[in-house]
């Protein structure tokens, strides 16, 4: 069959047009600024080549921010996906409160990030609800200065992000699970396969498209993290929880717009280098299955 005429390209045009005019074009012009000395208090721009990029790495805070960004990305990718799959499988069973539970677990992800900061900031205080709860159940030793201890603050922010977004990942896994035909499971039951082998031989492989989507979304989202850190800690105390996203804002705040754009470009390059090979690898796997 001639796929050419059956699937005409012009159906792509509307999406491509909107995308190119309102996103790609401005982003490309934006890239150019990372090679200039663009500043808030300067009349004219000068092309300065790679100078911004050379200067980026002389900043000690950026190294810390990179470390924090990776911690955040790794912790949230693992947390959101493992918990997301577990919840989706649980809520795909025939449970009485299935619909209610789905709505509850999904609900935090529809909240604006402002809600998260306003609800969690008081709870995470040293004398806040969480530490008091831990004390009440005899686990007081696990109490922490969640948002003020420089050595754990980024972990706290990652946990809050997992709290908020796991439901989002769960929803995508649920949509994936529902496209798996019941016949596979029936066949497996007749063969007497155990729960684990059903999971690893049927569920996991057939869930690959959803896993692929979630892995990419959480990875890219984790590396580009900004708002959770911004509203919970503002990068503090001091610079302890700065991530690349907040460092960019800091550069803009100091009036160094060219530099801010340069860090943004660098982040773009880094995320591309990490995620594209992974995407290609995952798509090959999908085809192979």
């Amino acid at each position, binding site marked *: 069959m001639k796929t050419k005429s059956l699937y*005409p390209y012009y159906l792509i045009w509307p999406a491509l047009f909107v995308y190119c005019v309102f996103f790609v074009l401005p982003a490309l012009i934006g890239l150019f600024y990372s090679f200039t000395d663009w500043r*808030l208090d300067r009349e004219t721009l000068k092309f300065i080549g790679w100078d911004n990029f050379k200067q980026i790495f002389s900043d000690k805070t950026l190294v810390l921010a990179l470390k924090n960004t990776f911690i955040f990305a790794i912790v949230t990718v693992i947390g959101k996906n493992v918990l997301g799959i577990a919840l989706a499988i649980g809520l795909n069973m025939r449970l009485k409160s299935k619909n209610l539970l789905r709505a509850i677990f999904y609900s935090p992800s529809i909240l604006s990030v402002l809600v998260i900061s306003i609800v969690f900031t008081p709870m995470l205080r040293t004398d806040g609800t969480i530490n008091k709860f831990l004390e009440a159940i005899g686990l007081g030793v696990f109490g922490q*200065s969640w948002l003020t201890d420089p050595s754990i603050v980024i972990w706290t922010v990652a946990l809050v992000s997992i709290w908020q977004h796991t439901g989002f990942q769960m929803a995508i896994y649920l949509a994936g699970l529902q496209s798996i035909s019941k016949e596979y499971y029936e066949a497996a039951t007749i063969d007497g396969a155990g729960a684990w082998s059903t999971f690893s031989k049927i569920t996991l492989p057939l869930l690959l498209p959803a896993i692929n989507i979630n892995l990419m979304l959480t990875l890219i989202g984790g590396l580009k993290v900004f708002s959770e850190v911004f509203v919970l800690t503002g990068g503090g105390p001091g610079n302890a929880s700065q991530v690349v996203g907040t460092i960019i804002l800091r550069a803009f705040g100091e009036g160094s717009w060219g530099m801010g754009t340069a860090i943004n470009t660098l982040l773009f390059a880094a995320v591309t280098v990490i995620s594209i090979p992974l995407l290609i690898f995952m798509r090959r796997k999908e085809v192979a299955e």
Partner: protein
Amino acid sequence: MNHKMKKVATGVIASLLALSLAACGSNSNSPAGTASNGGSSSGSKVTLELAISKSSQDSAFVAQDLLDAFEKETNIKVNLQLLPAEQTATVLQTKLAVDETPDIIQYNLASAVTDLNLERNFEILDSEPWVSRLLNKDVLSANDHVYSFHVSQDTGMQGVVYNKDMFKELNLSIPTTFEEFLAVCEAIKASGVTPVFMPFKDNWAANIWPAAAFADYAAKNDPTLFDELNSNKKKWTDIPEFANLLDQQYQVFKKGYTNPDILSDSYDMAVGKFLDKEVAMMFMGDWLIENVAEKDPSIHLGLFAIPSSKDASLGASPLGGQLFIPKKAKHMAEAKKFLEFIASKEQAQKIVDSQGYVSNFNDVTTPKLPDYKQEIVDNYITPKKTVLTTDAHMLVDRSELYRNLQDQFAGAKTPEEVLSAWNDKFAQLMKDKGVAGF
């Protein structure tokens, strides 16, 4: 058939576009519309856009009855753009950079110099009719030009805000040295009240003590210090006393004279802490006293100088909350008319009276000042015991200094490390700005 499909697809695209255009049309009073026909000034009603941070929305300049009176007299409407406090600077920077400016902006003059590129973006107001009536041009000027407007010349004062009733009850007098201050803290602590409230989740609050203490040190020992810092003849690490002054504030915390969780407590809790009489003192500006008085006039607060040295001077911060007109304002003439209107004897007197301002116009009389303000005038301003705080001398963004101070209280930096980290950042920012000597 192919042709037919194309037609259908084009139809889909067209209807999508129509849908979104309809969305625009349904909002016929969109600003794009007003902007395009506003320039023609063909007798149609002009709307001024006034941008102001949400945190200053109780400013007397945007009070509804003032705006109504203006509209009634001139047939010019004023529309407010209230910007979230933490994004005000970046939103205004962006709008100024792309020439989509509001007609009037309320901002602080000193921050406008560092944040908003005052000279490039704002109109010089030297030849406005109200300028000749000003008593104190300096509080509205930069580089010898009047760039901003205000009816008050009352600069904010920064020091130790304290509860006078508690001091009286415990028979305490105002400390004049750091040792006396610690003794006062001890006595207050013994009475069961937290001596000092430090809301250092907001990192700028950690800067009140050093900003006044550094300036006091410079005024007494090295009057040209800030000029030398700004021309790279001296470094922040060259002054050993700075580290001591930073350590003083840390000692107050370390000796247990503060709220326990200083990095979790934020500035917005301060008024409540004073209202509930949980705390006796705080390093802050006199605006806090007004905010507490608004909620409960029966609590008597006062202000004394940061006791970092013997008989220290009170820190004075530059006047804030001025109005500016961007050079690219679409309705320049009308914006100037708005300033003229507020400057009129009648309106200015109304504002000065209701706010308790020190008048900046020779034909507008200053009302009787509130007690705490009169005391500041008597104890500090008249004997000339005030000094402009460090921030008033800075040409670049200070938020990295605030972050370093927060680091000090998180236990991650010594005073020396704070100064050396800030020194590096300061040099970088000054160099990027193109200041000579860096």
